């Protein structure tokens, strides 16, 4: 007699026991017990994301269409906040522009990281050491990084000015963080310095996952190094590259810590990003409703860019390696 | 996981070592923090000066503030107790003889006991 259940039944018990007990009611109870267990396993984590990601997103949207202040009643506002933001708020547009510029650091640093990863991937002694050194800035506290770079950029005792002057590139020191011209770029350099290590590690992992026999076959077929790179390496590196792009975009949208400790958004509004402006509106001026509208716009923008990056990298980004 | 793995891995050993160092340090501090600061005041020729006023000031990141003062004994020695600082500035003065340049004394912990090796030298 063949039993309807061939494998051990979840939750223990032998095949024979399951066969004899395979009447629908008992089996269903065992299965549903497993589902209950699964639900319990998932519940705490899902609750956190519900409470601190999904619900806030919707809450933001509702808030953006309302008039509300702590302690006051909520009232419908329609598009008032959006109108103010788009047509009357110059700082919003400046912050938007700065955020866009800040994002330009991402492709630059990924290209740099790719070069570094290719170098490190060569069979040289001390590979692990180089990788560790390049990655070292990443686990550092961003606020500390900001303070360190402030010091480096200082126009009286800072290393950057000293180095540039020693190399003859400038004749007098530049107060980088106090010049509307250079401040944003200066902050971006610090950001790249910190993110480079993460990109290199991700790309290195991607490089190491490319089977070497592909290169062997190509070499036998007479393909030059540049062809091997273009036809084998780059396409197979796509998921890693996409991951770096997403992480870079997220980092540029959320670089609150670095701006706060390096410039506070100044000089003037030269380094004001959307995220710092939102913070100031919400938590310094207590304009939660207006800030919520800006947050909604910021998120929509971020989503659009992420989807665009996805499309440009050839559709479904595939593996979810290490994001966030 | 086997208990030996739990105990002998890099993490546990490192943090245990750090913990032990911290404990030893705290014991040392507890045994030596009476805030005792002593020294001598001499004149330019090396003779001890009795009755010189020694002023102890607190030194912080932002300021130097006077905390206490005392007078040297017949052998030119002075001592402060329980000064409660981690960095001080000492000044000495005796009318008729002169004053000593301010001396900064930095300690490793608050109220660390210290006996100054070099005396404060008064000069006009």
């Amino acid at each position, binding site marked *: 007699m063949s039993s309807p259940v061939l494998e051990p039944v979840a939750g223990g018990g032998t095949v024979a026991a399951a066969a004899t007990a395979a009447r629908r009611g008992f089996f269903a109870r065992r299965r549903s017990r497993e589902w209950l267990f699964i639900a319990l396993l998932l519940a705490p984590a899902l609750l956190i994301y519900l409470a601190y990601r*999904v619900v806030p997103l919707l809450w933001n949207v509702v808030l953006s269409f309302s008039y509300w202040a702590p302690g006051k009643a909520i009232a419908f506002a329609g598009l008032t906040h959006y109108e103010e933001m788009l047509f009357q708020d110059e700082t919003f547009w400046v912050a938007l522009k700065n955020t866009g510029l800040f994002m330009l650091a991402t492709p630059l640093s990924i290209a740099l990281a790719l070069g570094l990863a290719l170098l490190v991937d060569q069979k040289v002694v001390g590979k692990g050491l180089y990788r560790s050194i390049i990655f070292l800035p990443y686990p550092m506290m961003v606020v500390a990084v900001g303070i360190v770079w402030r*010091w480096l950029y200082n126009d009286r005792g800072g290393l950057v000015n000293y180095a540039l002057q020693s190399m003859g590139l400038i004749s007098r020191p530049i107060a980088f963080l106090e010049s509307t011209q250079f401040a944003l770029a200066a902050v971006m350099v610090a950001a790249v310095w910190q993110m480079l290590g993460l990109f290199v590690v991700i790309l290195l992992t991607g490089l190491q996952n490319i089977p070497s026999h592909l290169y062997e076959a190509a070499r036998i077929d007479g393909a030059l190094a540049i062809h091997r790179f273009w036809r084998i390496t780059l396409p197979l590196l796509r998921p890693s590259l996409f991951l770096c792009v997403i992480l870079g975009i997220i980092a540029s949208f959320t670089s609150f810590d670095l701006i706060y400790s390096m410039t506070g958004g100044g000089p003037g509004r030269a380094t004001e990003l959307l995220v710092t402006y939102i913070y100031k509106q919400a938590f310094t001026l207590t304009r939660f409703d207006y800030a919520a509208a800006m947050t909604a716009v910021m998120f929509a923008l971020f989503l659009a860019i992420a989807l665009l990056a996805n499309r440009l990298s050839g559709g479904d980004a595939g593996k979810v390696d290490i994001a966030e | 996981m086997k208990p030996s793995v739990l105990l002998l891995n890099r993490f546990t050993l490192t943090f245990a070592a750090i913990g032990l160092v911290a404990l030893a340090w705290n014991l040392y501090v507890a045994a030596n923090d009476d805030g005792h600061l002593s020294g001598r005041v001499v004149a330019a020729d090396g003779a001890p000066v009795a009755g010189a006023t020694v002023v102890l000031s607190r030194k912080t990141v932002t300021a130097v503030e006077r905390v206490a003062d005392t007078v040297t004994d017949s052998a030119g020695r002075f001592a402060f107790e329980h000064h409660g600082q981690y960095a001080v500035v000492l000044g000495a003065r005796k009318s008729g003889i002169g004053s000593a340049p301010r001396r900064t004394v930095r300690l490793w912990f608050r109220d660390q006991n210290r006996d100054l090796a070099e005396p404060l030298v008064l000069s006009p």
Partner: protein
Amino acid sequence: MKTRSKLLVHAALITVSLIMLTPIYWVLKTSLTGENLFTYPPSILPVDPNLYYYVEAWYSVSFLRLFFNSVVVALIVVAANLVLNAMAGYALTKQFPGKPLVLGFLLASMMIPFHATIIPAYLLTSQLGLLDSKLGIALPALSHIVCIFLFKSNFEAVPASLIHAARIDGLSEWQILTRILLPLSKPAVATNVILSFIWSWNEFLWPLLVVRSPGQQTMPLGLVAFLASFEDTTGALYAFCVLVVLPGLLVFLLAQRDFIRGLTSGAAKG
């Protein structure tokens, strides 16, 4: 590989390494010598190094309290992450109705950056009465989706026969998770611990919003407060920076091997 190209590679990598290390070296040097803003030109090597700026940093703020607060929050976050992420990762290795929905929910949540949620998150935490508390600081970070998927991949790599054998032996689902899957997923556990610790230790914006009193400040907040009170004309500020950064670096250096391995194995399995 030809010797000449090998040398070139080394030369390039050494140059890059020096550039990456220079800021770290510089802050270390300044913390030891207290060269203030007005010394020009700056010297490359430390002149008259001393450790007294560390003493100054320690006493200028309630360093121990800041350290304690950060440690407690980090411990809550790391412990919760281990438990919640392993549980969720295990659940996702099974089949159940609505699984695509749950996966979609998680992926969607991953696309919502934390900074897009700060206003309602703050209001929610305020409603829960958790403002100015360590639990309030820890709450949004009790689980990271990345780590859930990391556990999921690691668990799926465990041979199914092992799990079946365990079931036949009568182990409950919970025991399968704790006795079999977790011990075999050491890289994932290590990565989970390291990532959640470092993210928690370095977190600045969220504690900035939640903490209302100086007694509850965490290290990053203390650092910024120090900067505000004392400006950057003292070596003590940089000593503080070094002290603040040290635990994160220490954990990373100790855990490099497992960390990289954890990232790699997760990436390979997807």
